[in-house]
């Protein structure tokens, strides 16, 4: 083998420890963990980090968590939902304390990403914690001066399960280029003008631009949710190449 046959060497995305700076209870099942990385080269909205926990007997567990903060911020926000019988998420919610060192590496992911230079319109469709990478996009979009048309369709069980609700409502109130629709699957509050029930084709048609406007879709959430939304979008005539998906959970269950 000659020197030219050697594949290019890339530095490994190194593990580092971040300090837990803030913990925010977002809903009864979800907390945001705000980390101070030792060093950070920046990220694209939509990327994730891998977290690694190490037990005292050396056992390790790794899981991925999307970055919810925009690249403009120096601290990294991860937003974690409790999976009842889970190994890592209950630890992050119940055991992790301010000042703890948490091992992670990133940023990771080069497809489910958006930045203002890519322009719009963009249509974000979130199911549950699938909002996290989309929130990084919205937070980044808010900091850009380009008025990029965007819509967010956010499916949650109830209003109390909507993560970042105050921030989203404030964001939408002050921005006529942003449309925000909640779809609540288990609660239909009276005098509330969101959508009761699951996301439907009609709801998508009414809130997602037209195929002629050529929006880019970012669909994120549990597998079943992402499957159903993305096939509805294809059926509605949107180009499959403009539909980017990220699936968080197991299938079915």
């Amino acid at each position: 083998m000659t020197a030219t046959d050697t594949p290019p060497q890339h530095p490994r995305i190194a593990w580092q420890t971040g300090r837990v700076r803030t913990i925010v209870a977002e809903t009864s099942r979800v907390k945001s963990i705000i980390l101070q990385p030792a060093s950070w080269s920046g990220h694209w909205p939509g990327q994730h980090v891998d977290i690694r926990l190490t037990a005292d007997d050396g056992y390790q567990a790794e899981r991925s968590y999307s970055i919810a903060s925009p690249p403009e911020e120096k601290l990294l926000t991860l937003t974690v939902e409790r999976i009842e019988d889970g190994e890592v998420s209950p630890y992050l919610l119940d055991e992790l304390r301010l000042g703890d060192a948490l091992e992670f590496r990133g940023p990771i992911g080069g497809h489910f990403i958006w930045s203002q230079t890519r322009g719009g319109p963009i249509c974000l469709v979130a199911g549950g914690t699938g909002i996290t990478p989309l929130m990084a996009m919205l937070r980044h979009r808010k900091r850009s001066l380009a008025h990029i048309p965007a819509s967010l369709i956010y499916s949650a069980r109830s209003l109390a399960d909507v993560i970042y609700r105050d921030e989203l409502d404030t964001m939408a109130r002050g921005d006529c280029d942003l449309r925000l629709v909640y779809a609540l699957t288990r609660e239909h509050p009276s005098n509330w003008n969101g959508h009761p029930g699951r996301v439907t084709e009609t709801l998508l048609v009414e809130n997602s631009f037209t195929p002629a406007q050529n929006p880019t879709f970012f669909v994120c959430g549990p597998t079943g949710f992402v499957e159903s939304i993305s096939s509805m979008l294809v059926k509605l005539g949107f180009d499959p190449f403009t539909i980017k998906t990220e699936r968080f959970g197991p299938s079915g269950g």
Partner: protein
Amino acid sequence: MDRPPVSRGFKSKRQASETARLPPGQYLTTDFPVLSAGPTPEIRVANWKIALQLGGSLLGTWTWDEFEALPQTTITVDIHCVTKWTKLNTVWQGVSFDDLLKGVGLSEPPGAYIMAHCDGGYTTNLPVADLVAEKAMIATRYEGLPLAPAHGGPARLLVPHLYFWKSAKWLRRLRFMAKDEPGFWESRGYHNYGDPRREQRYDGD
């Protein structure tokens, strides 16, 4: 980093017997998670065709019926996704890569690398050495049933000893190449080879 810091209060919830067979960093799932970069294409087998290519020239194509008539192989294997789940003892049926080569009258693969091309524009690259000698197949059945669209149906590549993104879903074309080229995830920060035993998740691992 030398020794990773201990996460105070963290204990494994897994049985040692459960984790013994797992590659490093993987956890066991009994579910079958779905991961892909875009929507699931709905492919009717009546319109389906698969091609074997050398560079730009065609070595052979098969319609669904022709493909189904090729010798069938069944294997039971563990599969490992780069997103860290591992599923044990999965049963697949399909046509081995070796039988596909024989089907076009080749005793030797005509190139050292392969690019798999799929519906939806996905691609992934593999050394041919990782496909021959019963190491890989084009799978059309999972646990005895036709492969569901979400899992790559009607036909997907199955290369169980590499991370599962190499087992491209909705396979349409296998193209021999003289030189290696990165595929979809490989050009987006994922490892070029993807060996789970060596935890080759990302570029540089």
